């Protein structure tokens, strides 16, 4: 019995050694493969093969993508990774300073990127330039405003945020479940500027949010709110915009969005390069591709969600421009206000206020 056990143990030992050796080989091979690839932390619109494939083929590189939602979750992935694991990141433009504060990002070479072709209002210098250096470039933008089904509601009503709290549309509204843009819309509704919100404004904002909630059938994340509007569960989406309606325009041309008289909240997403990237040349090439007229058109019409390209020279077709209301952008941008960018303390209080709104009966 003991002899048999001894044999078994030695066999186990030998197999363990072999397994360790094989694992080490696999890990080594894996890290070699990673060094030749481009690793990108992205939002879902960047995972569209129609966007990535032309770049991969032109540069003979594999773009490995990892999707995340929310800056906090994205930065947590970076913190749990080894320096150099990631090359580029998509990030809310207002959150670029958070990455810079953590020492994650590399300044971008302005002379090698088409800053001159961007819509001036979406360069977001206040967020993307830190300490005189530019760390992010806005690649896509749009509005958190009122998305609606124009066959079910009076489009004239959609020109005022007051409609969102009127009895006329009670039970016909969904609210997009992201506190910052919807709090921004509540601020616009009560005549406050989104960039000037303070703790003192919270009670009035809460009152407005509770009025919206009382009218709402649901508060849903991207897919749920989009589905609710597309299937007719609701007729209005608070916080919706071209990112909800444009991609569905072919199947459901009744979906539209408005920029009401009080204004809308401007969202924008940026690309940043990691300071510890092992592949900075390729990372820059990727950013250049995304910012090129072709890359911009593909990103703007990504299968995950559509949005306005930040490059005015994006190679969009006439139909695509029409759906995105490209020619109306100067007017829209003039009336849009920045995404609220609270400090950490106010951010926490806003999120708690949002929690209270969700729990309200």
């Amino acid at each position, binding site marked *: *019995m*003991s002899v048999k*056990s*001894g044999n*078994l*143990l030695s066999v*186990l030992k030998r197999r363990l050694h072999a397994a360790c050796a094989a694992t080490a080989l696999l890990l080594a091979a894996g890290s070699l493969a990673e060094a030749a690839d481009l690793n990108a932390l992205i939002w879902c619109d960047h995972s569209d093969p129609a966007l990535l494939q032309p770049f991969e083929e032109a540069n003979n590189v594999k773009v490995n993508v990892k999707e995340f*939602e*929310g*800056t*906090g*979750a994205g*930065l*947590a992935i970076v913190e749990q990774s080894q320096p150099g694991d990631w090359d580029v990141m998509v990030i809310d433009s207002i959150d670029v300073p958070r990455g810079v504060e953590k020492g994650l990002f590399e300044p971008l070479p302005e002379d090698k990127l088409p800053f001159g072709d961007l819509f001036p209002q979406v360069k977001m210098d206040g967020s993307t330039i830190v300490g005189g250096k530019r760390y992010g470039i806005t690649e896509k933008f749009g509005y958190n405003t009122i998305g609606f089904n124009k066959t079910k509601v009076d489009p004239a009503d959609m020109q005022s945020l007051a409609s969102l709290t009127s009895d006329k549309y009670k*039970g016909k509204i969904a609210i997009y*479940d*992201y*506190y*910052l843009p919807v709090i921004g819309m509540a601020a616009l509704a009560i005549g406050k500027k989104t960039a000037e919100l303070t703790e003192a404004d919270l009670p009035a904002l809460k009152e407005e949010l509770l009025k919206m909630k009382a009218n709402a*059938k*649901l*508060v*849903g*994340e991207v897919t*749920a709110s989009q*589905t*609710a509007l597309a*299937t*007719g*569960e609701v007729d209005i989406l608070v916080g919706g915009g071209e990112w909800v309606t444009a991609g569905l325009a072919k199947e459901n041309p009744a979906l539209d969005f408005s920029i009401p008289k009080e204004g809308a909240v401007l969202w924008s997403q940026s690309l940043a390069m990691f300071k510890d990237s092992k592949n900075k040349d390729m990372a820059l090439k990727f950013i250049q591709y995304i910012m090129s007229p072709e890359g911009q058109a593909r990103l703007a019409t990504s299968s995950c969600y559509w949005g306005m390209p930040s490059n005015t020279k994006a190679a969009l077709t006439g139909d695509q421009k029409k759906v995105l209301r490209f020619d109306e952008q100067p007017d829209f941008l003039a009336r849009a206000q920045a995404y609220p960018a609270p400090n*950490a303390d106010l*951010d*926490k209080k806003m*999120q*708690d206020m949002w*929690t*209270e709104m*969700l*729990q309200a*009966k």
Partner: protein
Amino acid sequence: MNSAGNSGRAPPRAGRALPWALVTPALAWTLAFFVLPFVAMGLSSLTAHEGGGLTLANYSQFFTNASYWQAMVNSLQVTAIVTVVSVLLAYPFAWILAEQVPERWQRLALMLAVLPFWTSYVVRSYSWLLVLAQNGVINRALTGSGLIAEPLQLANTRLATVTGFVHFFVMLLTLTIFANLKQLSPSYRKAAADLGAGPVRTFLHVVLPLTLPGIMVGAFLTFVLCIGDYITPQILGGNNELLMPQLVMMQIGRRGDFPLASALSIILMAVVTLAYLACARWLKIERA
């Protein structure tokens, strides 16, 4: 096989090592994927989100913020309703399968009963959304037949969340109760009948108490899986009320507040542990 002279000696070294070698993978797995993450989560829950440093603030937030507390109340209410309704539906179902369906058809019947397990959890939740929606199957049938004039709000409610959960957990409970019913010797019922007990009395005083372990095991699994589930309330509940897993996820998304998320998770785990202790004591699982 051992001689009397050998019996008092310790087993050879290799013999002693074998059980450890065999159990080591399981121990290592538990250590790596449960104990260490749990300790890390515990430490994280005691850390301040801004600036680090030890603090109990993450826990005190839960007890002082009414909306956070409400999330726990909501979770417990939904879980209790789901568990009770699932047991009430699953027991007769399992009983019919075990007692009324001929032996040769039982396997097929059981397979058909658990068929919904074969579809993805997310897909199943979205399917319920289509059934319960304003333009869904139920509302169309009700409005089409003239029973109601306006569609009912079924989707994006607590009712929808409970429905989605019950659909899933009835299958689970059916399996545990069915197994228990099949293990029950017919002699018990015969003995009860000999002693003059009718079918109802036999069921209430013999069958039901003897199948309580199956019910409690299924109910406990239902409780644990339901109270920690994020997908179903997120898809079917319409965020019209927050449950604990949703509150946990909310801390991570934009702000990346892992310490608070960890504290809320530990509190949720404490509730599950209490539920386990309650079930274990009642069922005397510790004697097994």
